[in-house]
């Protein structure tokens, strides 16, 4: 029996060391560092709560949280609506070939890296030479300053994030919809429910756990948005697209304020935990578990 226990410890050892050293330890260290001032060069000096006092009156930091929250909510809501809409439409197709083809097409954007997509879209959304404004111009829509205006830059980042990630929600919705039992759908049909009624009374409750999952995972991802604003706008114009992680990057790795950067990271973690808890609380009433 003792041999078996030893074998068990040896088997988990590599993963445990990595998790302790690079996730569990650093999260504690992040909290610790947030009470210090440290520029990496000179030794850290204890600063008490001063980083947090500074943070709560720092308009740039608070603004970055609102920017990030606005972007994240827009991206996740659109991802869910578009992903679900596409999944419902693809499910209507009778031929397996059509369903498979659409599934592959909607998955393809996920294969590119977010930074590559940002490079490509930066060219496509260019105000003067971009292909987007060219086609909009053919429709009589005047040049839109996509990357250089407040609304344009925000909209561009939302559009390209949704364009790239909608396949994720789509694939999950396809799986969830196909697991709705046939007899339940038939029963609804016999009771005279139309397609709309069937969707809201039967399908939507049955797939609500998937909606919650996409919402939680999507928010955790979108609240850490970095690649697209870093590549396309550098956070501009002004601070319009300066997300919290972009600000952490600038604070810690460009201005070498490691303590203050840690305090912002800890605040981001707290906000994320709060948002996740909020979604699970809301889900208690809305999500239906079989």
């Amino acid at each position, binding site marked *: 029996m003792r041999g*078996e226990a030893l074998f068990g410890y040896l088997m988990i050892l590599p993963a445990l060391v*990595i998790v302790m050293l690079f*996730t569990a330890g*650093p999260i504690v260290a992040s909290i610790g560092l947030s009470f210090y001032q440290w520029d990496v060069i000179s030794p850290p000096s204890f600063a008490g709560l001063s980083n947090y006092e500074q943070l709560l009156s720092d308009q740039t930091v608070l603004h970055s949280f609102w920017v990030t929250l606005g972007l994240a909510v827009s991206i996740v809501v659109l991802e869910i609506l578009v992903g679900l809409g596409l999944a419902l439409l693809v499910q209507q197709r009778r031929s397996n070939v059509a369903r498979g083809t659409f599934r592959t097409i909607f998955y393809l954007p996920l294969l590119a890296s977010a930074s*590559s997509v940002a490079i490509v879209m930066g060219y496509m959304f260019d105000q003067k030479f971009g292909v987007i404004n060219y086609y909009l111009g053919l429709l009589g829509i005047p040049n839109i300053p996509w990357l250089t205006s407040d609304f344009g830059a925000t909209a561009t980042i939302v559009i390209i994030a949704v364009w790239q990630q909608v396949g994720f929600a789509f694939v999950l919705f396809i799986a969830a919809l196909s697991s709705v039992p046939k007899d339940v759908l038939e029963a609804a049909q016999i009771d005279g429910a139309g397609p709309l009624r069937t969707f809201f009374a039967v399908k939507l409750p049955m797939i609500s756990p998937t909606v919650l999952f996409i919402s939680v995972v999507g928010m955790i991802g979108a609240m850490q948005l970095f690649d697209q604003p870093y590549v396309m706008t550098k956070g501009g114009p002004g601070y319009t697209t300066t997300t919290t992680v972009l600000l952490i990057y600038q604070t810690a790795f460009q201005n070498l304020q490691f303590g203050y950067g840690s305090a912002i*990271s800890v605040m981001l973690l707290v906000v994320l935990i709060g948002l996740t808890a909020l979604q699970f609380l809301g889900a208690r009433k809305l999500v239906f578990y079989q």
Partner: protein
Amino acid sequence: MSSSAFPARAGRAIGLLVLIVAAIAALAPLVWTLTTSLRTPAEAFTNPPAWIPLNPDWANYSAVFEQIPLFSFFVNSVIVTGLIVIGQTITCMMSGYAFAMIRFPGRGKIFMLFLATMMVPLQATMIPVFVLIKWMGLANSLGALIVPALGGAFGTFLMRQYFLQMPRELGEAARIDGASPLQVFWKVYAPLALPPAAALATLNFSGFWSEFYRPLIFLSDQSTYTLPLGLVGLQGNLGTGSISVVLAGVVVALIPSVLLFAFAQRYFIEGITTGSFR
């Protein structure tokens, strides 16, 4: 039935139309990238774009290999992604198996610790990890990206769930036949767990092949750059003059993902869906 047939048919036709429009929207930027990468730099910004490359100009592809060390970026990306995928698959199979099949004191508590770290966003740990990487002497080397990713809580969880469903009798029978605990794992159970291992591997491939943030922070010497970092640098250096060259680089970076997806689409989809039923 006949009275509802017409609206139903019209609804399906409109549905198909919407799907086709959505498919065009999904594909257009990818097609534009490919065709523009085949235009001469002088033509690259002329509209309308050439959706079908009648006179492909392959010079951009040689240019991108000459103007920046694209080949070295590519090799670095292959090394980083390859070692992480192989390493993490093995360590997560081991730990997932142990948490599912072996009894040892503290098992439940240690597993809870894994679960708790699964929720921690990468961003909340980056500053201490950066300091640690410097102390370990890994900064500005590929090891900075590889070592911290050689194990993972999510992968452990994924593998454990799969091993939990396996019959214990298989291992007991092998033990009676004289197999050691390691042989039971490696010869009996590990081969049965290849589907979730493949799903984990494709998930990790997608994630680490595309990774931008950690390379940006850990790597400062161009000889260590991975593809995403190198391409963003290329875009910055060349400016708008040679976008077709930049796009050729983007296409080169995309090829391995597309090839892998073509051969293992099933595992990509499974990776996403198994991850969601937790």
